[in-house]
């Protein structure tokens, strides 16, 4: 059986002063990959992606879902098994020493990729602000992409105003482009 390995984590903190409730938001990123996928260099493939987004409580709630896989060793840290409790402690530690987003504001992308006219598309279309474009996926199938940026800068306020409504429908990796980090 294959399993997911997470090699490194990085967490960005969006200052709470940008939001009406004054609570910080976090974007937790992980460099990970499957245990049985290898690249041309004979090294296990890995890439960065978001694993949890939101307030501290939301990250911990999503973290419980992720941590459950640790119990069956479907998720390991640097190839080693760990308990779900340890994975949750790792997330808390990540949020405690999160970096401000200014360190990555120009290299991070906030977007939502979804299918035409699905639940998420209908919800976001009704909200002003996010730019909606139609792109093609790897299979040349049309996909809708919403980008949360204004004048070339990430619009965290807009993104986190809609994120609570769409977080149930999609996993965190649907929302963050971390390929330039």
């Amino acid at each position, binding site marked *: 059986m294959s399993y997911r390995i997470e090699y490194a984590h990085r967490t960005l903190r969006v200052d709470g002063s940008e939001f009406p409730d004054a609570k910080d938001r976090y974007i937790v990123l992980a460099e990970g990959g499957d245990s049985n996928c290898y690249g041309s260099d004979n090294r296990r493939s890995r890439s960065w992606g978001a694993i949890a987004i939101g307030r501290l409580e939301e990250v911990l709630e999503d973290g419980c879902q992720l941590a459950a896989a640790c119990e*069956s060793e479907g998720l390991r840290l640097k190839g080693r098994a760990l308990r*779900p409790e340890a994975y949750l402690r790792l997330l808390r530690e990540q949020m405690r020493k999160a970096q401000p987003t200014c360190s990555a504001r120009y290299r991070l992308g906030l977007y939502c990729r979804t299918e035409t006219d699905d639940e998420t598309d209908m919800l976001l279309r009704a909200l002003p602000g996010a730019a909606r474009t139609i792109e093609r996926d790897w299979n040349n199938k049309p996909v809708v992409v919403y980008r949360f940026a204004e004048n070339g800068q990430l619009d965290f306020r807009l993104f986190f105003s809609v994120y609570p409504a769409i977080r149930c429908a999609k996993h965190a990796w649907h929302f963050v482009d971390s390929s330039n980090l």
Partner: protein
Amino acid sequence: MTNEIRRAIVVVRGTYPGEYPGSSTELPIVWDQTGHHTNVTALTSHPNLQLPASSAIQLVCRLRAPLTVRGRLLQDGQQVSPEKYLATWRTAPRVCHSRVAEDLQIALSSVATFDLRVERCNKGGYLLEELGIVDIDSLVSQFPAVPVGQQWRIEFDLASPHAWRVFAQFAARSYYDPEVRAQPAQFHVQTRALAGTAPQPDLFGEELA
């Protein structure tokens, strides 16, 4: 707000055909106090296909631990972190399924409602020949089936030695096998308090959040 006041793990060995020796499935049981009522619930893996999970900790981590983050679920009256919540589950008593009535004072049963293509089932290979269940007739002779409209309702007493395997087999077959399945099946594990304990509500049909 729910207060989890007691917890236990029912361990069932050799539930699924073809399992490697020594493997087991686990059914977490929770006693939740809401107001003056205490509900006993068996946590299962899927709202419609309520099979036992291979790991109780994995299941409570996914279903219950997130509720502790904002205090929607208390543990023994206290707000706890998900880490502490899981740590408490690791010390929960583990009970063999044959001792559930004696040790936990509850009865476990499962009600399955399904609509199968009977002619496909009767071709054999779909049922449990080693248990003498080779077709629908032999199934019904061992486990009473009640027709409900176009569907059947079968109640499995999960204290009986073979019921777990039959339940799991039928759940998996009727859920995953389009050759056999005519309509989505519904499976519910229900718990019932035995005489001498506080009355419990009938949990049939109650889906987990």
